[in-house]
């Protein structure tokens, strides 16, 4: 069964690349535009991994991350935070609130795919 990846991103431009990447790598992709939708999808679809921007309208990615990680049912859901906020303190915040890893924009798409596969316990293509 295909693993599910939920992409939470309000920038439609980056969504194009991310959705294409995840689909090409064999994942089922769900899309959410903001934090509230992210929580709804998390509850209904139970994704294996959430690829989430930090700077979302209304509810930030940090807040969503904190809300998910305080609930035991999401203990095994992996979260990768993606953000233009790249200072050490921003990364520390994300990790302190329960994210599994933090990727700063601009990022290498190959590296991102590698991290997704690693977190989902899949074999990484060495090429």
């Amino acid at each position, binding site marked *: 069964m295909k693993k599910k990846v939920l992409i939470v991103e309000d920038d439609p431009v980056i969504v194009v*690349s991310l959705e294409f990447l995840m689909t*090409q790598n064999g994942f089922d992709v769900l899309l959410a535009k903001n934090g509230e939708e992210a929580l709804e999808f998390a509850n209904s679809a139970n994704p294996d991994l959430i690829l989430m921007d930090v700077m979302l309208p209304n*509810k930030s990615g940090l807040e969503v991350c904190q809300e998910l990680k305080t609930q035991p049912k999401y203990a095994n859901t992996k979260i990768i935070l993606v953000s233009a906020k790249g200072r050490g303190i921003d990364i520390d915040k994300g990790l302190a609130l329960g994210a599994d890893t933090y990727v700063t924009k601009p990022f290498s798409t190959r590296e991102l795919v590698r991290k997704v596969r690693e977190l989902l316990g899949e074999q990484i293509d060495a090429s």
Partner: protein
Amino acid sequence: MHRRKKLLLLWFFFTLLIAISGVSTLFLFFHQLSPDNQKTFIHIVYPFRFYFILPSLIFFIGISYATKWVVDSFLIPLAQLDEELRLLIDANPSGRIAPKGHPLVQSLIHSINYGAEKTETLLNQVNQQIEFAKSDLEKENSVLAILIEEIKEGVIVCNREGSILLYNKKAHSLFSDHAQETSTSKSAYIGIGRSIFQLIESSLLEDTIEELNERHRNKESNLTQHFTNRSGNLLLDIEVIGLLDRKETLNGFIFVIQDLTANMSYLKPFENILHDFKEKIRSPLANIRSTIETLIDYPVVSQEQRTTFLDIIQQQSVELSSLLDSSLFSSLEHCHIASFLEQISLSDWLHSLQRKVKTETGLSIELSLNGCDGWVNIKRYFMSQALLHIIARLNTELAANSFRIELREKGKFALVELNWNGKGLEPESFQEWIVEPLPRDSEDAPISLSEILRYHDAEIWFQNDLSTKKNYLRLFLPKIEMEKTPDIVDKSVVLKERPLFYDFNLFDKAIQHPELNDIRLSEISYTVFDTETTGLNPSAGDEIISIGAVRIVNGRMLPNEMFEQLINPKRTIPQASIKIHGIHPEQLIDQPTIETVLPQFAQFVDKTVLVAHNAAFDMKFLQLKERDTGVAFKNSVLDTLMLSALAHPYQDSHSLDEIAHRFNIEIRGRHTALGDAMVTGELLLKLIPLLAEKGIVTLKQAIQTSKKTYYARLHY
């Protein structure tokens, strides 16, 4: 030889002499007789020999016991009494001599104790009167000490030669804490009597001092000079002020030191501008990059997909270009809040917030701090205003009147959770609240909660929990690491007096000459140290697991100039030794090895005389590590075990416990390296005047005379 043993040896030879005298007398008498008379003598005496031998034997044994009784009952107790009386007078007025020896001697001791009691009472009365007379002066000194201690700048005062006479807590933390962080750094320790040239780059300092000297010679009034100095990772601004005495002679300098690295908060707005710019360009760059990489890695795509990707690249490039023309400097108007960020404990801040809310709104907040003791770097006024504003809005718009703040720590961050019962908060309302300007009386530009949060790198969000009907506002705030205070295993080891950071008696003293031998013991700087080890055999693989040390300068122990470090011995620790020093293997796993610690210790003890109790033991451990660490201790060494034997040769024991009891020295932290070092230090200070009475005044005399004691034979 131990003097008590000498007395006993004297008794032995005396009784032997009596025996030999008796026998010799008889032999000489017999030898004087003619052969016939000798035969007659033998003929008469021999049948009655037992009547001669037995009484002679009884007489001999009697004399022997009698003289031994005199030695035990009088000579030895009186010799000990002599030492103990001097101890009572010079070092331990509250002590009392234990009665011993013959009842006559005991009676004398009782009289002495009675006299000591009277003297002590009189001394106490005199001291009370002195204390009363000094109390006003003490108050002034306390205020001055607090002033110097608590100001934010580092302050160091030194004499003309650069010998440090005074320094405050901030100066100590800027230099000493930093010195202990790196083993290879050339940073030295700060301390009374140490040289300022070891702390601050010499050429720069010499140039500054020369400039001030020149101005003084030219009778210029401006005797102040500034320079910056890099000390490891710190950038320091140093103001040097010439210190004139009443005769207008330049006899010292004051250094006022500001840590520019820690106080760069005035650059925060510029930092934020730079970060804003970086953040704004990241997204278009990320979009361009990911699109290009996707095209490279997945070349086989539909025409429609290819067109989409190319459009993305073009649009994002245009956006990137437009960013270069935008103005990002609008946030400079909020420079004022970025300055003067305060280091404050979370507990203190929340208590002050609680008071502020009560005063300004009448609302009560229950605080639940969960034992958190973290610190934050905030502008307290603005953060408190922001939360006060939120609470006031919750009260007026949602009729919330019961509030609770709970504090939790999550790694490097603090989570401040504001709870209230009643209606929940609408997301749109919250978004409005955080961007609207806060009400202020100041003429400065209005500022919103979101801007305050940005300057503090904080996040805020809310949650309405429908199941519990509780509403939460969560403030996520970075904590800061507070400056380390000196490590003390047992805080009670620190002396009760106010920490000593100054000694103006050193104003006129030159920096210690390397040739210490002829300097008076009372004027030398010492490092008194002790080690805890895995066992008693340094040559058989036992290792040091703890070093503790304290400095003595100008006859005073400096409780704020201490060295204490646990050491990973890279071997097992026998149970027998754990029972003595109480240090368990798990306490040492993360500690540095001797190769790291010994160079730091060598720096700490530089230009001082080393002192330890049974120093041969400790020095052997240090010497065995010379090859591995490259550190050789060339300092002169004094042993308080030997010095005690010199001062009180008639005492039976010179163990640290016994001597401490004799001198009425309180033992705190026994069998901890620092605790034992401090007891040894107090012991040294009490021994110095006693040695002086015996004519042992200089270091050279102390070392040479020590070699004659019995304990000088101890080797490890």
